[in-house]
C-alpha cells in the first residue's frame, strides 16, 4: 500500500513545539547559560566553563542538602506507602461511608502548599499551637525552632498528613478493581488474611503503587514551600532541603552561576533516580510475567 507522503504535516506539531519551547526548553537553556558563565554585575558575562559544576561538586553544603533530601524522601516513602496501603485496605468498599471517606481523605490534597505549611507552623508552636502546647503540657520537650529532631519530626508528620491520602486513594482504586471471585477463591483455598494480601491484593495493586511511589518520590524530592514556611530550613541548616538551599543561593545570595549549576545537577538527579525506579519496577513486573 502506498503511503501518502506530505512533509507539510510537520507544521501541525509546530504549535506544540513552540509552546514547549517557551515553557520548558528556553527557560532551561537560560539556566544552562548561567551555569557556564560568571558575572561581576553590569550585565557583563564571562565564560567560566565547568568551573561552577566543579565548585558545587566539591561543596559540602550541596552534599549536605542532598543527603538531607534523600533522607527526607526515603523516610516519607517508607511511611506513606505502607500507611496509604493500610488505610486503603481498611476503607469501606461501598456505600455512604466509602464516599464519605473519599471526600475526607481528599481534603488535605486540596489545601494550597503554603497554607499547609502555615497550619503546621501554628499547630506546632509551643505558645499558641494546639499540638506544641499540648506536648509541652505533657512535659515533652518539643520545640521545632531550636531542636533539629523536633523540626524533622514536624516536617515529616506534616508531609505524611498532606500526602498519605494520595497513596491511599491510588491503592484504593487498585483494590476496587479486584473482582470478588478472587476473595471467594481465597476463602475456598483457606488462605489467611496475610496470604490474601500477599498473593491477591498486593500483585493487583502493584501498578498503581508504582505510580504512587514515583509521584511521591518526585514531589518530595522537589519539596520547598511547606518546610520553608514551617522551619525556614532551620534550626541552622538541619532542615535545609535541596530546593530551599537552591533558593537561598540563587535569590538570597544572588550566586547565579553556582545556583544554575546546582539546578542542573538537581534536575539530573531527579531524572536519574526516577529512571532507575521506573526501570527496576517495570523489569520486576516483566520478570514476574
Amino acid at each position, binding site marked *: 500500500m502506498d503511503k501518502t507522503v506530505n512533509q507539510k504535516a510537520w507544521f501541525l506539531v509546530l504549535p506544540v513545539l513552540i509552546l514547549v519551547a517557551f515553557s520548558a526548553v528556553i527557560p532551561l537553556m537560560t539556566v544552562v547559560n548561567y551555569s557556564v558563565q560568571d558575572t561581576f554585575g553590569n550585565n557583563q558575562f564571562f565564560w567560566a566553563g565547568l568551573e561552577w559544576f566543579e565548585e558545587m561538586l566539591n561543596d559540602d553544603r550541596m552534599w549536605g542538602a542532598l543527603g538531607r533530601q534523600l533522607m527526607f524522601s526515603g523516610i516519607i516513602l517508607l511511611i506513606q506507602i505502607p500507611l496509604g496501603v493500610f488505610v486503603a485496605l481498611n476503607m469501606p468498599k461501598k456505600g455512604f461511608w466509602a464516599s464519605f471517606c473519599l471526600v475526607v481523605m481528599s481534603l488535605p490534597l486540596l489545601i494550597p502548599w503554603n497554607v499547609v505549611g502555615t497550619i503546621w507552623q501554628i499547630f506546632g508552636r509551643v505558645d499558641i499551637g494546639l499540638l506544641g502546647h499540648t506536648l509541652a503540657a505533657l512535659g515533652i520537650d518539643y520545640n521545632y525552632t531550636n531542636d533539629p529532631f523536633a523540626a524533622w519530626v514536624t516536617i515529616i508528620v506534616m508531609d505524611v498528613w498532606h500526602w498519605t491520602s494520595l497513596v491511599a486513594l491510588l491503592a484504593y482504586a487498585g483494590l476496587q478493581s479486584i*473482582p470478588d*471471585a*478472587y476473595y*471467594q*477463591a481465597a*476463602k*475456598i*483455598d*483457606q*488462605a*489467611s488474611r496475610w*496470604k490474601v494480601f500477599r*498473593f*491477591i491484593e498486593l*500483585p*493487583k495493586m502493584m501498578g498503581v503503587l508504582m505510580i504512587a511511589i514515583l509521584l511521591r518520590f518526585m514531589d518530595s524530592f522537589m519539596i520547598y514551600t511547606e518546610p520553608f514556611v514551617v522551619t525556614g530550613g532551620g534550626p541552622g541548616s538541619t532542615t535545609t532541603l535541596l530546593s530551599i538551599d537552591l533558593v537561598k543561593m540563587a535569590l538570597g545570595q544572588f550566586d547565579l552561576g553556582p545556583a544554575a549549576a546546582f539546578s542542573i545537577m538537581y534536575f539530573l538527579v531527579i531524572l536519574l533516580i526516577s529512571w532507575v525506579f521506573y526501570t527496576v519496577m517495570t523489569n520486576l513486573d516483566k520478570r*514476574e*510475567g
Partner: protein
Amino acid sequence: MAKITLDNLAHSYLPSPTTEDDFALKELNHDWVDGAAYALLGASGCGKSTLLNIISGLLHPSQGRILFDGQDVTHAPTAERNIAQVFQFPVVYDTMTVQDNLAFPLRNRGHDEAYVAARVQEIGRMIGMEEMLKKKARGLTADAKQKISLGRGMVRKDVNALLFDEPLTVIDPHMKWELRTQLKKLHHDFGHTMIYVTHDQTEALTFADKVVVMYDGRVVQIGTPEELFEQPEHTFVGYFIGSPGMNVLPAQVEGTTAQVGSQAIQLAGGYKAASGKVEIGVRPEFAKLSQTEGLPVTVRRIEDVGRHKIIRANFEGHDINIIAGEDDHVSADMNRVSFDPARVNVYVNDWRVAPEGAQSVGEAA
C-alpha cells in the same frame, strides 16, 4: 464426596422478605446425589448463581438448611465445607507458578511438602499441564488459567463437590469443546459430584447427567436431557431448551381435543376442562408440514440451517416453528400442518398437566 441435601432452602437479598417475589431463590427441596454431574440451567438472573453460592457457603440462606451427608452445614464457613469452585473469570494467583497455585490449598491446610509435591504432580497430569508446572501463572491463556482453577479445586482429596459458575464464558469457542470434554472425562474417571451453572443449553445438555432448569428463582424441572426435551414440565423449559423452542399456543382443552382458534387438535389422552391460562405445547420436531394432511397454516419463511430446515409459519394467528429434515421436500403448495398427538403437552398456568388416567409424569417419556 458427599450427598448434598437442600431442605426448605430459600434466599432473599432483602432484609425482611414478605411476598414470594422478594425471594431471589424460592423454596427448594432437593438431593444432589453423590458423584453425579448436574447442570443448573437458566437465563441470567434466575437465581442459579445464588443457589451455587449458598452451596459453597459464600452466601448464607435466609431460610432452610443445607446438609452434606446428613450433616447440617448451613452456617459453616466456606473453608470448612471442602467445596471447590471454578468461577466465570479465571482466578489464579498471578505471581505464583502453576505448581504453587495447585499447592496453595494444600499448603494452607498444613499438609507436608512431600505429599503436596506428589499431589501437585498428579493433578498436573490430570489437567494436562505437567509441562507448565514451573511457569508463572500470569501470561497463560484463559483456558489454561481455568484448568488451574479446576486443578486447585481437585487437589484436595476430601473435596465434597466441584462447583462451576459459567466457567467457559471467557474461553474461545474451539477450546470450549475441549475443556468440556476434559471435564466430562475427569468426572467419569474420578466421580466427583459436580454442579455446573450455565445459561447455555448445549453446555448443560452435553455435560450433565441431570439438568436442573431454573426460572425466576424456582426450580421448574429436574431431569435427564431426554426428559427435558420430550416432556417439559413448564412452558419455560419447553421454550428454553431446543432450538427453536417449543411452540406454545393458547387453547381450550376438553376431552381429547384442544381448540386453538377455529381449529381442533387431537390429543393423546383425555383432559378435564381446566380454568386459568390453558396452553398446548408441541416441539417443532413433532410438527409436520404437508400438502394434504392436517390443519391449514400460512408459511412465512423457511430457514435452512444445514442439518434441517426451520419453517416459520402462522397458525390461527400464532407464530409457530416446524422442523423439516434436510432432505425433506418443502414446496410452496404445502399449507397444512399436523402435530403428533402423543407429543402434544397441555399446560395450565405454565405447568404441564398429565392426561386423565396417566400414572406419573415420567411414564410417557
